[in-house]
C-alpha cells in the first residue's frame, strides 16, 4: 500500500486532485519554487524571458494549413502565410522542412488536440492534461508531433520531462484505438539539422512513467519548504527572478506600474 504523506497546511494550497501538464512537470523538475509560484499560486510573472508570439504563430499557421488543405500544396501554404502577413523566407523555410516530415499523405490527422488522463490508484490521485500539436494515424501508429521553433535541448524525446507527460496521456488515446504510440519532435528552425530520436514507449516505459508521476505528486503533497534551486544559470531565465526569495539572479520586477507609481510619487 502506497503511503501518501501530507505536509502541514498543504490541504489549503493544493487542490484535492493535483493536475500535471507538460509545462508544470518540466517546471517542477527545474525548480520547486517556480512550480509553486507559477502552477500553484498563479503569481503574475515579474520578468519576461523571450517573446512567445513567434512560436504561437507557427503553431497557428500549421493548424490552419492542415485544416484547410495540405502542407504539400505550396500555393495553399503561401496563401495562408500571406493571410497572416508572414509570406517570407523564414516561415516558408519552416514549412518546407515540416512538409518533408509530415505524414499528411499517409493518414488522417488532427491539430491542437487537448487530452486528459486521470490516475486514481494507488494514491495520490492526479490528473494529467496536455495539448498535442498534431496527431496522425497511419501504419498502425498514433504518430504525435510536437512542433518546435527553437533550439534542440534533448538527444532523445524520451529524456524530456514534457514528453513523458505527453506520452502518458497519449498512451490511453492510442490504446483505445489499438495503435502503437510514437511521439516525435519536429524542429523547424533552420539552425536545427536533426530531430531528436522519437519516443516509442513500450508497456514497461509507460508503467514507469505513471509511477514517476505518482511519486512526483506524492512529493508535492509532502513539501514543507518550497525551496528554489538558487542556480544562476536557471534563475537568469526564470520569469520570477526579480521577486523570488531564492533567486540567484535578483533584480527589479518589470511591472510597468512600478514606474508609474514612482513617477507619481516624484510629482507629489
Amino acid at each position, binding site marked *: 500500500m502506497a503511503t501518501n504523506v501530507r505536509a502541514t497546511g498543504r490541504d*489549503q*494550497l493544493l*487542490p*484535492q*486532485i493535483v*493536475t500535471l*501538464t507538460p509545462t508544470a512537470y518540466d517546471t517542477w523538475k527545474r525548480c520547486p519554487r517556480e512550480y*509553486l*509560484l507559477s502552477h*500553484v*499560486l*498563479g*503569481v*503574475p*510573472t*515579474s520578468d519576461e524571458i523571450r517573446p512567445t508570439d513567434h512560436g504561437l504563430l507557427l503553431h497557428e499557421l500549421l493548424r490552419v494549413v492542415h485544416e484547410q488543405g495540405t502542407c504539400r500544396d505550396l500555393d495553399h501554404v503561401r496563401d495562408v502565410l500571406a493571410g497572416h502577413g508572414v509570406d517570407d523566407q523564414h516561415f516558408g523555410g519552416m514549412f518546407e522542412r515540416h512538409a518533408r516530415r509530415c505524414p499528411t499523405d499517409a493518414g488522417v490527422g488532427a491539430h491542437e488536440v*487537448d*487530452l*486528459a*488522463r*486521470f490516475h*486514481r490508484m494507488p494514491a495520490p490521485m492526479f*490528473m494529467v*492534461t496536455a*495539448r498535442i500539436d498534431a496527431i496522425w494515424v497511419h501504419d498502425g501508429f498514433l504518430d504525435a508531433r510536437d512542433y518546435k521553433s527553437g533550439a534542440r535541448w534533448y538527444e532523445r524525446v524520451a529524456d524530456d520531462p514534457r514528453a513523458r507527460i505527453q506520452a502518458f496521456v497519449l498512451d490511453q488515446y492510442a490504446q483505445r484505438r489499438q495503435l502503437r504510440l510514437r511521439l516525435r519532435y519536429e524542429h523547424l528552425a533552420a539552425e536545427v539539422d536533426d530531430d531528436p530520436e522519437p519516443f516509442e514507449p513500450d508497456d514497461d516505459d509507460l508503467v514507469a512513467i505513471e509511477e514517476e508521476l505518482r511519486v512526483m505528486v506524492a512529493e508535492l503533497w509532502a513539501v514543507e519548504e518550497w525551496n528554489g534551486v538558487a542556480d544562476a544559470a536557471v534563475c537568469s531565465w526564470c520569469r*520570477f527572478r526579480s*521577486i*523570488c*526569495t531564492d533567486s540567484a539572479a535578483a533584480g527589479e*520586477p518589470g*511591472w*510597468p*506600474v*512600478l*514606474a*508609474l*507609481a514612482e513617477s*507619481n510619487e516624484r510629482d507629489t
Partner: protein
Amino acid sequence: MESAEEDELPRVTLAHLRGAETMCRRRLAREHAGLRGRWSPSPRYAVGNRVVEDARVAHAELRTPHARDFPTPTDLFPEQQAVYRAAAGGYVALFGERPAVAVTVDAWETELAELEVRLVGSLGLALETADGSPELRSLRLGVAGNRPLIDDGERRVLVVRSAAWVGVRPLRLVVADLLAGAVVEEELDVAAALPEALEWVTARVEVVRARAADPVPKAGAECRGCPYVPGCRAHEA
C-alpha cells in the same frame, strides 16, 4: 459530495455564457446546478481578492485611497506580497486623486428571477464619486497575451449586474490592470444598454440549459481543476 443548496436558482457565469458550446457538458451541467463536487478555494485569487477588499475598506468613506490603506499581507508568500505591493501602488497611482465611497451591492451574484438563474461572478468595486455618480472599478493583475481588458460579453454582464444599482444614471466603468498600469475607461448608459444585454444573456442561458440537459463528458483541458472528476465516465479505467 456533489451537494447544492436546495433553494438556490441554477447559476451561470460569464465563462458559461461565453463558451457553453465548447465546454465539457458534464462539468457545465454540474456547475449550472450549483453542485460543489470536490471544489476548494484556489490560492490563485488570494492577492487579487486582498487588493479589492483593502480598496473597499479604504473607500468605506468618501475619500481618495492612500498607500497606508494597503498593509502588506504577511500571511501570504513573499512573492505574493511583492505582487500585492505593486498592485496596491498601482491602485493608488491610478485612483489616488479620485475620491469615492463604496456602495453596498452584492459583489458576487445577481438573481435574474425572470430567467430563473443567478448570474455569478465578481462585479468589482462598486463606488460612488463625490457628486453621487456610480463608478465600477474592475481590477486585474496582469492580463495574459494581447487580450483586451474587457470584451462585449463581460460588458453586457456588468450592465445586467449593475442595472438595479445604477438606475438611469450614467455609469463610469474603469477596467484597470494594476501591474501593467493599463486602464480602459468608458461611460455606459446602463438603462439604454440593458435590453440588448438582457437579450444576449437570455439567449446564452438557453444555450447553457440545452447543453447542460445532455451532460456528456469530454476529457480535455477542462479536466484541469474540475471538481467533478470522481464518477466521471470519461475517466473510467
